[in-house]
């Protein structure tokens, strides 16, 4: 028998090895375990409920909330600082150019001969 035909017969034997096989029996007490699982899943609101109560998800949500809070506080602090600077510079401008006052630079009278 040649090598090729030997290989072919081996391959055919493998391909036909499932012919006439018996159906595997489900394990004992499958229904009992199924009932237990269904009670657990339905109590927890199903897979979505279980997913939502996972520690990883809870920690991630907590981290997101913390970051959002920190960002908001930081933004508010920056805004306060910016408005303080604006007030301060406004006061300087007001002191230099008082309302209703005489501005020496534009005092045309003093330029007259």
């Amino acid at each position, binding site marked *: 028998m040649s090598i090729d035909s030997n290989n072919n017969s081996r*391959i055919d034997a*493998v*391909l036909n090895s*499932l012919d006439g096989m018996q159906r595997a029996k*489900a394990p004992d007490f499958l229904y009992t375990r*199924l009932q237990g699982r*269904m009670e657990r899943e339905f109590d927890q609101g199903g897979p979505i409920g279980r997913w939502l109560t996972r520690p990883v998800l809870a920690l991630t949500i907590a981290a997101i909330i913390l970051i959002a809070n920190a960002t908001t506080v930081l933004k508010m602090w920056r805004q306060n600082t910016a408005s303080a600077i604006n007030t301060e510079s406004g006061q300087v401008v007001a002191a230099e150019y008082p309302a209703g006052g005489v501005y020496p630079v534009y005092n045309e009278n003093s330029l007259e001969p």
Partner: protein
Amino acid sequence: MNELELIQQLRAGDEGAFKSLVANYQDLVYNTALGIVQNSEDAEDVAQEVFIQVYRSIDQFKGDARLSTWIYRITTTKALDHIRSRKRKKRFAFITSLFGPNDELVHEPVDFQHPGVALDRKEQAALLFRMIEQLPENQKVAFTLHKTEELSYQEIADVMQLSVSAVESLLFRARQNLRKLLEKYYQQNNPQDK
């Protein structure tokens, strides 16, 4: 109790009907799942998921196909989902093993031995299951349903919602691919045969 009565009672939430459904279909579901996921614990897990799905969505069963066809469809979908999830976990385990204290891979696969295969064919069947695992999903499902559940082309077509000619084509390509994989296997394992 005929199929129609069983469905009506299931829709009414009858626990006895559900128990009867599980008793009638548990071997079908388990064997189909086992053929696809190739692991007894995973197959039981899939079987449980299938019956939970049936319980939840019995109202969506229109009755245009046989109940067994619908259950086969749910089983193959759940089994494929299970394989995808297992592959994701395996990839994650591989990444964690790179940073872990030892370099061993978790969930190292072992040859699957189907309990329904005759003793003198166990070794060949284990090799065939290893090759089936490498087939594309639709070929894997068609081939497994044909071999492990001995479904006809028409029944496979109903389960997979394809035409009979599409199933014929899938099974033809599955056989071709398996033959190529086996040729490669024997060339690598018996170098003198080259």
